[in-house]
């Protein structure tokens, strides 16, 4: 490449490094909010890219590669990292510079990766990250000597502090145009790995002085958090606190959004007349659009609280500990300990959960996790649960005195989550027995990183990305489904002099009537039948659909009072059956398509759709008939 063209186009840089080396924090600091998240062509590996202007005025395209211990590439994520590094990834131009990020407090494994990358012959720059923590802990690194021994430029960075990336930026500006040297690399065997690690250890001995090998805070915390018994109790308490918080903390913001949409609906309603074509428009705006979007947006605060907890635990370093504590319990159900993190992410949404099963190398273990991940209670079920619990479970403490802080509603919510977890464990046990008899679970090996204080900036960026994704969903899939539902329940209009409620002349009524015989044994009425169908597009739409159906039915009533409307119309047995249905309900279309992509075919997609539908029906049937037998019908 000549210097002219290098000066004209953007500099392409890729970040490589071990998991937990602070690579993503560095990426966030360098690019700020100028990030794009997409997929690599043909695979579902997340491609995080951003851009920034270097102090020298050069535009830089930065790629954050999935973390890896070696270029040997055992999982789809690691294959992408290897192929980008070697310049062989389709659709990605070879990077001009690799920045290998290494944790300065834990250089040993990072150094071996650096030596491996060096063998690949790509232009390489080493960033010793978390240098402040290393210095604070009394770890001394002779950076110049390290650079000399490696034969590579080495800079120190503090990703989480302002000015902590100055040296890195200066080194990037000093970077000469990349030479197009052929990447010659082949996977090292055990002997090769030993030689590399020995060389890394030799370099380490020469340049690093470590006074105390373990982080004192991590040691003290782990004594409690990884205690065989206390650790498990604390894990349960953390999860319980998380679900209580989802209910309690989000309430004020939810009330605010609710009131806002009510006011907006009333204002729009006041502008248009009830009769004629304008009446149809008024109904569309008020009952279809505003009520529909409002009934979904109101759950944004709860989803953010849930993601806040997941991001906090992740950044803090607790997630790997949770996998450690749960390994044996999950193993009993035929799941890999690493499945804990994907399953916990599935509490937010099954889609990132299923995508993050890529950390599991073995195909069988991965498939088992993918099949049960949608059983974990995703945030899209929160609207459904909240609505029904709010309408049918009294808002009161469970008991007196010591128990007065535990709300009955929160307890029921916890119970629903527990039902999801238990059924996921149970189903994976069944799958292991029926589908993969006698095949062993792959070994569990996981690094437990030192604890770190989560950084506000990283949390805010993470939450913002989640909120954006939810709003985009609310604005596209959910909104369009709402328009369809409104149309079906408003057209055709009742004839002149009609005596029945308007909705009984609509298409929705005919559809609901058609499926009703199938749903009668599980206690569902035709309105639920109408709501279940769009609920397939996205679960939370079921709530909005109920809102629309009942709003069109009772033009006088306020849709925001949907809970009260349901409490007056459904029996407790129906409400419980509805909850039971939604513990298992076949996942949304987006989840099914991710399953198809990740498993490489339709077979497993239809399998999981079928088994969940069967479970949902059986659970709702048992709940409804059981509740009726108890006299709750």
């Amino acid at each position, binding site marked *: 490449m000549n210097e002219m063209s290098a000066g004209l186009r953007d500099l392409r840089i890729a970040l490589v490094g071990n998991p937990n080396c602070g690579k993503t924090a560095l990426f966030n600091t360098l690019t700020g909010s100028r990030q794009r998240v997409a997929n690599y062509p043909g695979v579902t590996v997340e491609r995080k890219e951003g851009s920034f202007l270097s102090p020298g005025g050069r535009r830089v395209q930065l790629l954050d590669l999935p973390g890896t211990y070696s270029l040997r590439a055992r999982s789809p994520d690691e294959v992408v990292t290897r192929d980008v590094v070697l310049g062989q990834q389709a659709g990605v131009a070879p990077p001009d510079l690799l920045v290998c990020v290494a944790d300065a407090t834990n250089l040993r494994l990072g150094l071996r990766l650096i030596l491996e990358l060096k063998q690949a012959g790509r232009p390489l720059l080493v960033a010793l990250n978390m240098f402040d923590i290393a210095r604070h802990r009394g770890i001394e690194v002779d950076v110049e000597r390290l650079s000399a021994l490696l034969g590579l430029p080495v800079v120190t960075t503090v990703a989480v502090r302002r000015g902590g990336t100055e040296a890195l930026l200066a080194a990037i500006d000093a970077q000469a145009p990349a030479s197009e040297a052929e990447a010659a690399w082949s996977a090292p065997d055990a002997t090769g790995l030993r030689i590399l690690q020995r060389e890394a250890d030799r370099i380490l001995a020469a340049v690093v002085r470590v006074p105390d090998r373990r982080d004192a805070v991590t040691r003290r915390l782990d004594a409690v958090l990884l205690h065989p018994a206390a650790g498990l109790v604390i894990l349960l308490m953390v999860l319980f606190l998380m679900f209580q918080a989802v209910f309690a903390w989000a309430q004020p913001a939810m009330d605010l959004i609710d009131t806002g949409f009510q006011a907006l609906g009333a204002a729009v309603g006041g502008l248009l007349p009830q009769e004629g074509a304008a009446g149809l428009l008024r109904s569309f705006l008020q009952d279809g659009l505003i009520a529909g979007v409002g009934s979904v947006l109101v759950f944004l605060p709860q989803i953010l609280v849930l993601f806040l907890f997941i991001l906090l635990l992740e950044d803090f370093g607790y997630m790997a500990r949770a996998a450690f504590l749960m390994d044996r319990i999950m193993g009993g159900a035929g799941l890999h300990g690493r499945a804990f993190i994907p399953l916990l992410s599935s509490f937010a949404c099954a889609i990132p959960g299923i995508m993050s099963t890529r950390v599991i190398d*073995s195909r069988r273990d991965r498939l088992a996790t993918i099949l049960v991940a949608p059983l974990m209670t995703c945030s899209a079920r929160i609207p459904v649960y909240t609505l029904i619990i709010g309408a049918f479970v009294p808002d009161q403490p469970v008991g007196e005195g010591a128990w007065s802080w535990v709300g009955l509603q929160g307890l029921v919510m916890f119970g629903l989550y527990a039902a999801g977890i238990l059924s996921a464990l149970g189903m994976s046990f069944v799958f292991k027995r029926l589908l993969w008899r006698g095949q*062993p679970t792959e070994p*569990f090996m996981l690094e437990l990183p030192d604890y770190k204080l989560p950084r506000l900036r990283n949390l805010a960026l993470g939450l913002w990305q989640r909120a954006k994704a939810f709003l985009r969903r609310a604005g596209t899939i959910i909104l369009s489904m709402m328009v369809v539902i409104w149309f079906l329940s408003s057209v055709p209009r009742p004839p002149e002099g009609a005596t029945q409620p308007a909705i009984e002349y609509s298409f929705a009524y005919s559809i609901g009537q058609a499926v009703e015989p199938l749903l009668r044994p599980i206690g569902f009425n035709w309105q639920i039948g109408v709501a279940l169908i769009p609920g397939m597009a996205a679960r939370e739409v079921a709530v909005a659909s109920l809102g629309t159906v009942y709003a069109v039915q009772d033009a006088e009533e306020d849709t925001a009072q949907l809970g009260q409307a349901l409490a007056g119309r459904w029996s407790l047995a129906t409400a419980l059956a509805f909850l039971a249905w939604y513990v298992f309900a076949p996942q949304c279309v987006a989840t099914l398509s991710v399953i198809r992509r990740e498993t490489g075919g339709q077979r497993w997609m239809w399998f999981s759709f079928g088994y969940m539908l069967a479970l949902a029906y059986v659970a709702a049937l048992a709940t409804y008939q059981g509740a009726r037998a108890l006299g709750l019908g």
Partner: protein
Amino acid sequence: MSFIADTVLTEPSAMLDLGAAPRGFRGRIRGLRAFASGGLPAEELERRLLELGFVEGAEVELLHQGLFGRDPIAIRVDSATIALRRREAAAVLVEPI
């Protein structure tokens, strides 16, 4: 602890595998004796252990163990802490220090 150390002094063959070590055990890795495990061939298990830093000469300490069957275990290997099961840890031969 002291009993094991004494045995080692008098009898060099008294190396033990990390999978059998008690909590609090401290030692030095003498070798890897990989076997096929969990659907992985021996060679692959060996490479994975090496990639996580289990290399001859490294110092290890068994920091934590799980509630059920004392499994899995958390091993300090030099500057990193690695969680694994006793079954695979049995591939790591150690000598107490």
